[in-house]
């Protein structure tokens, strides 16, 4: 290691701040190294920036052994215990079947490296080797949650998918056009309250957030900050 490298290492003591593409609504706080909004709202419909969550993509044969192990088949999101290996902790991980042979694992902020490692280990332990790749998308995507009974009405203003119980029950996952953006949508009810996770390419995060707030105006939508580190 040359001198300058060492110098740089010692110079940087305070950790860098991670930022979502969505400008945090004041007051601003820091959670797990991320700058987030600490605003609280008890409105009937809330919009929350969940971008700090760990977001890891897995690609593997859609009909292979890993697919069976991961849970969350294409079109479904599951909090799957089966994916947790022996060393795994009680980490809060949601596995979304986001495409044919494509999964998205969502976890608490800062857990992405660990999640990548665990997923790679899972793949390595398959009886017959499969072509599996794991990519950390935490920085490449934005994640937004909308919650409240009228969320289907909000979403119906920006998305053409049938949000009825028959087509998209709790746990349904699909990718479609939302406000003319390709977005992964996961229906993820919380304590019986309708809730959706929306996952899009990072640079359009602010655009999508604004579009959801605009569509939600009719239902009194408000920003609810990100204060809990997990999904629930």
């Amino acid at each position: 290691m040359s001198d300058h490298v060492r110098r740089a290492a010692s110079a940087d003591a305070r950790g860098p701040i991670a930022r979502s593409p969505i400008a945090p609504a004041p007051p601003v706080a820091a959670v797990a190294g991320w700058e987030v909004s600490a605003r609280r709202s008890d409105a009937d419909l809330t919009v929350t920036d969940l971008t700090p969550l760990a977001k890891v993509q897995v690609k593997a044969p859609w009909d292979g052994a890993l697919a069976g192990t991961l849970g969350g088949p294409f079109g479904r999101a599951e909090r799957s215990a089966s994916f947790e290996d022996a060393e795994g902790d009680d980490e809060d991980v949601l596995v979304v079947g986001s495409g044919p042979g494509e999964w998205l694992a969502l976890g608490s902020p800062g857990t992405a490296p660990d999640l990548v490692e665990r997923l790679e280990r899972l793949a390595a332990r398959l009886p017959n080797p499969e072509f599996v790749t794991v990519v950390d998308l935490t920085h490449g995507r934005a994640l937004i949650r909308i919650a409240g009974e009228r969320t289907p009405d909000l979403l119906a203003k920006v998305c053409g998918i049938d949000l009825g119980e028959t087509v998209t029950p709790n746990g349904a996952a699909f990718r479609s056009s939302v406000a003319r953006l390709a977005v992964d949508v996961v229906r993820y009810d919380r304590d019986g309250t309708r809730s959706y996770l929306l996952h899009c390419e990072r640079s359009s995060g602010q655009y999508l957030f604004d579009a959801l707030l605009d569509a939600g105006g009719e239902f009194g939508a408000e920003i609810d900050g990100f204060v809990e580190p997990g999904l629930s």
Partner: protein
Amino acid sequence: MILLPCPWCGPRNVAEFGYVGEAGPRPDPASAGPEEWRGYLYGRANPCGWVAESWYHRMGCRRYISVERHTLSNEVRPLATEGAGR
């Protein structure tokens, strides 16, 4: 808006897809002469009737899919595709 039967996502609005069109095989570049090659580049059957064609599910599963479409009525029916199903 017509619906395309995506073998992965189910029926979806055509606006989610990119049109690729009639899919002809690519000639062997080692042996193809100009006429054959340019037939592949520019030639289309352009039937007024059923045609097998490809679409890219840009807003969905991002798979290239094949369907049969009637170019006058825009009726669509699925074509057997690799890995169809979920």
